[in-house]
């Protein structure tokens, strides 16, 4: 079954984010207070290794398992949407202590009140989709 590999990657993701404590509201609070290196170490080492790996993929033209060259889509150009949208996201991230990945993972850890946060996040996405043409991008 084609989907099993995605299920396994998701499981691995969930386990890593719980075991690293990156899903913890407390760790996010601590990060924004600059009181521990923990979260910076996680994100920093992930990005550093990611930069090397992506450069390697581009240089060697590595193929995906279907035989196509791996192509990592560049982000659309822009400034306002990234700064404004990012700041709005940051406000929510620090309040909920969870970004979209951890939100789902935390439901699995037994925090069912997170379902309210997820429902509100779906609503937020919906409202963005409805009013997006009126926003500066």
């Amino acid at each position, binding site marked *: 079954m084609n989907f099993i590999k*995605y*299920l396994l*990657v*998701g*499981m*691995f*993701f969930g386990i890593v*984010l*719980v*075991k*690293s404590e990156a899903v*913890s509201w*407390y760790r996010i609070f*601590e*990060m924004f207070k600059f*009181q521990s290196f923990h979260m910076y170490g996680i994100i920093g080492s*992930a990005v550093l*290794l*990611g*930069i090397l*790996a*992506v450069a390697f993929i581009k240089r060697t033209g590595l193929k995906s398992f279907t035989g*196509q060259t791996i192509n*990592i889509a560049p*982000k*659309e*150009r822009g400034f306002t949407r*990234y*700064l*404004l*949208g990012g*700041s*709005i*996201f*940051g*406000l*929510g991230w*620090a*309040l909920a*202590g*969870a970004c*979209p*990945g951890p939100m*789902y993972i935390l*439901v*699995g*850890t*037994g925090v069912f009140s997170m379902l*309210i946060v997820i429902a*509100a*996040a*779906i*609503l*937020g*996405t*919906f409202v*963005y*989709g*409805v009013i997006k043409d009126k*926003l500066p991008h």
Partner: protein
Amino acid sequence: MEYILQPWPWYVSGPLITSIMLLLFYFGKSFGMSSNLRTLCSMGGAGKYSDFFRYDWKSQRWNLVVVIGAITGGFIAVYLLSDGSAIALSPNTIDDLNALGFNGAGETLLPPEIFSWDSVLTFKGLAILIIAGFLVGFGTRYAGGCTSGHAISGLSNLQKPSLVAVIGFFIGGLIMTHFILPLIFSA
């Protein structure tokens, strides 16, 4: 086994997160968790209200499977792969949280002061979760990605827009943590 049951250090966790992104690249996909929120909107018929939700959401089903896996992974990590050790927060963080009325910081993954049903089932508690979720959902789509799409994948691919988005994440996060949380919570 002992090392697996204990919390994992950052230098193990960070590279493992990179490996998840690389696996998804190898499968010809991308690493982006917030896209699922848009997919769920489209599945629910949001295409009736905006073109933004009129796309082939079925092509995104693989990402929903990642979500189902992530939920399962969260369950496995907590119930099978944990020794119940507290989160080793900085003493300064624990002091600051005490001052805001949060007790027992780090004993659980999340503060019961926000996520226990006793807290959630009050007007203030419910408002906190709804506003937080709304800001995350709205902001992430406006910015075109979240921590996985911008901070991890975008920065790995040296994308300037992602750097701007991550700076935004921090502007919002610092304002919330330093100025707004003290207004919401005070002991």
